[in-house]
């Protein structure tokens, strides 16, 4: 359990305390990652099924390695196409996998709400690894963890999220979590990439990048998906990059010296981030990847294993 929750589906439903429970535990999980023997027996005998209906490298590997470090057995079930085109419904697929008695089902799906539908039908815990444009809770939690690690605290900090907000589940999870830890969120992108009524979720909306990043403590750059160009949301990546991309010059002139840059990956180098910025001193992108493993260890541990943080050290 994470606080009151048997599942980890939406940070909209998580309280400040529940978010802190995960990221506090992730601190000790990260320590495990740096041991010479990266293995604790906490989830020995537990099984985790990764059910991925959408392509993913980072998130799936991250959940898999998190499970393995905790000694759980991890099964990866990947479908190139959606359940509907395969002929088996999502509910049937989930029930079949549940019959194999996993302790946690990690699901990624292109349809918003799919993890919730599965959670309603199965007995085990369900973790969303991203559903449509709804939420990507483990990404939101690892962003919180990384920002707290780099900034010391989120209290009173300003975080700008830049890119295609309307299609971004990462932006939504960040937007639900960051203010609960005391941060202010600014959203920035072309008006065609701003979803209706997003400001009601508690952010300010900007279309001018310079204004959005001015004085910010952190900037989260989102990936621009090439299929959005034909939608048509933007004329081309060249113009997008000119107005909403970050290069070394803009970073130097517009960002305050301590400002860090995050990106959920995969990066379109030269579109939203120039290579110098992606690999530069402000970039904490690879820290995010490592913290992602720690956060997912914490999520799996809390849902499949013990109820107290001390168990992370193993109760073999």
């Amino acid at each position, binding site marked *: 359990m994470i606080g009151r929750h048997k599942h980890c589906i939406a940070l909209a439903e998580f309280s400040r305390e529940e978010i802190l429970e995960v990221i506090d535990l992730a601190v000790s999980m990260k320590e495990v990652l740096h041991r010479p023997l990266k293995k604790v027996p906490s989830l020995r005998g537990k099984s985790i099924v990764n059910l991925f209906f959408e392509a993913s490298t980072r998130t799936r590997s991250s959940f898999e390695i998190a499970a393995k470090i905790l000694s759980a057995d991890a099964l990866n079930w990947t479908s190139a196409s959606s359940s509907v085109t395969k002929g088996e419904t999502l509910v049937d697929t989930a029930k079949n996998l549940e019959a194999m008695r996993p302790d946690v089902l990690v699901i990624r799906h292109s349809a918003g*709400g799919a993890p919730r539908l599965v959670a309603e039908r199965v007995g085990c815990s369900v973790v969303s690894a991203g559903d449509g444009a709804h939420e990507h809770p483990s990404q939101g939690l690892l962003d919180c963890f990384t920002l707290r690690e780099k900034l010391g605290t989120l209290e009173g900090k300003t975080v700008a999220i830049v890119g295609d907000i309307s299609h971004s589940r990462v932006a939504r999870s960040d937007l639900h979590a960051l203010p609960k830890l005391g941060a202010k969120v600014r959203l920035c992108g072309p008006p065609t990439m701003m979803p209706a009524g997003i400001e009601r979720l508690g952010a300010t909306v900007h279309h001018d990048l310079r204004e959005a990043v001015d004085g910010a403590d952190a900037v989260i750059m989102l990936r621009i998906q090439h299929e959005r160009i034909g939608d048509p949301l933007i004329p081309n990546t060249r113009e997008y990059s000119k107005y909403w991309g970050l290069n070394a010059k803009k970073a130097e002139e517009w960002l305050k010296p301590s400002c860090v840059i995050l990106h959920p990956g995969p990066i379109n180098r030269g579109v939203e981030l120039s290579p110098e910025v992606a690999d530069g001193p402000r970039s904490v992108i690879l820290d995010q990847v490592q913290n992602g493993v720690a956060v997912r260890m914490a999520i799996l541990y809390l849902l499949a294993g013990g109820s107290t943080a001390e168990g992370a050290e193993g109760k073999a």
Partner: protein
Amino acid sequence: MSDVIFIEGGRVIDPASGVDGVRTVVVQGGRIAEVGERVERPHGARVVEARGKWVTPGFVDLHVHLREPGQEYKETVATGARAAVAGGFTTICAMPNTKPVNDSASVTELVLARAAQAGLARVLPVGCISRAQGGEDLAEYGELKAAGCVAVSDDGRPVASSGLMRRALEYARAFGLPVAVHEEDPVLAGKGVMHEGPTSTRLGLKGIPAAAEDVMVVRDLALLELTGGRLHLQHVSTKGAVRAIRDAKKRGLAVTAEATPHHLALTDEDVGASGYSTDFKMNPPLRSAEDVKAVREGLADGTIDAIATDHAPHSAVEKDLEFDAALNGIIGLETAFSVCLELVRKGALAERRLVEALTAGPARAFGLAAGTLAKGAAADIAVLDPAAEWTVDPARLHSRSRNTPWKGKRLPGRCVLTLVGGRIVHGESRS
């Protein structure tokens, strides 16, 4: 006198003849013989005690999907007609998007034959606007009318081509058929699955902006002005559409409009509150509270003529899915009166206007000889208990499908007796 029925003691509400008060309704030979305050009861007449009840013309629904031919696992003409009379509806207009679609006399005749076999509600088929609902060529309106169609519609599919819409309005004039349209710009709607607004943003579901409906309503009102003819706007759901229709009516255009109980009662926020329940997925989608308010006002002031259910049965095969993948539509025949009576209780609708929008309003819109208790009219009657309360259990409804957003909800008011042509087709006294 054995075929004489006296319905006594009830409050007769018949907006078509301006009656609202305690009256006795006398039925003889399948027709209304008399509606009076003091009527002598002849020996041998059958008596229906209706004290405390409402006695109204049988309801007229301009918009139902009966799924036969082709998708009988969802509904048949018979099960749909059974659901209709259970909900007080005695006349229902069957949309043509069956498999095959109703663009020919043979499908029209099949629907009519099945309805006659069922012997429940009167089923009036609606033919296609375009052949095969393909949106390109006109269907044969003359043949459809002659076979028994009362209107044409490509419902479920908007008429994307302005050129086809123009010709449909013009050509239908030759046969006096209303052209009933599902107003939605397909490009603006895109792959949207719910109303575009803060809720779709929060849920991460693709939105359909209200403007997708507005632009088509405005287009078709302009085409109506060009062509003459009769335009009927189906399931109006937006503030902009209501405003445009109100303005068009002021200018004297021959436009009529319907609204569904769900667009009057529910908002897009209910999609979120339901936890992505696909019983809240329909097209047009549930709109914002502001739109709902405008639709209610439009119904109250007569901008919207009729309440129509858009009864759209689907099985679990189409509904027990991700929200994105589920088909649009909900059943509505058996909950319409109760849902709307709840609006009356909330002060959003007057009792008499409610009855009018279920009877005389729709009958006028399609020019049907229905929706009245005038002397000589067919004895299609609903007896309703406004004091009843019930809990919606989809398994106990008469429809073959169970896709209702009111599952488990407690609702006021229920139809206790339904007569079609003087025959009791629903209710305890059925014998």
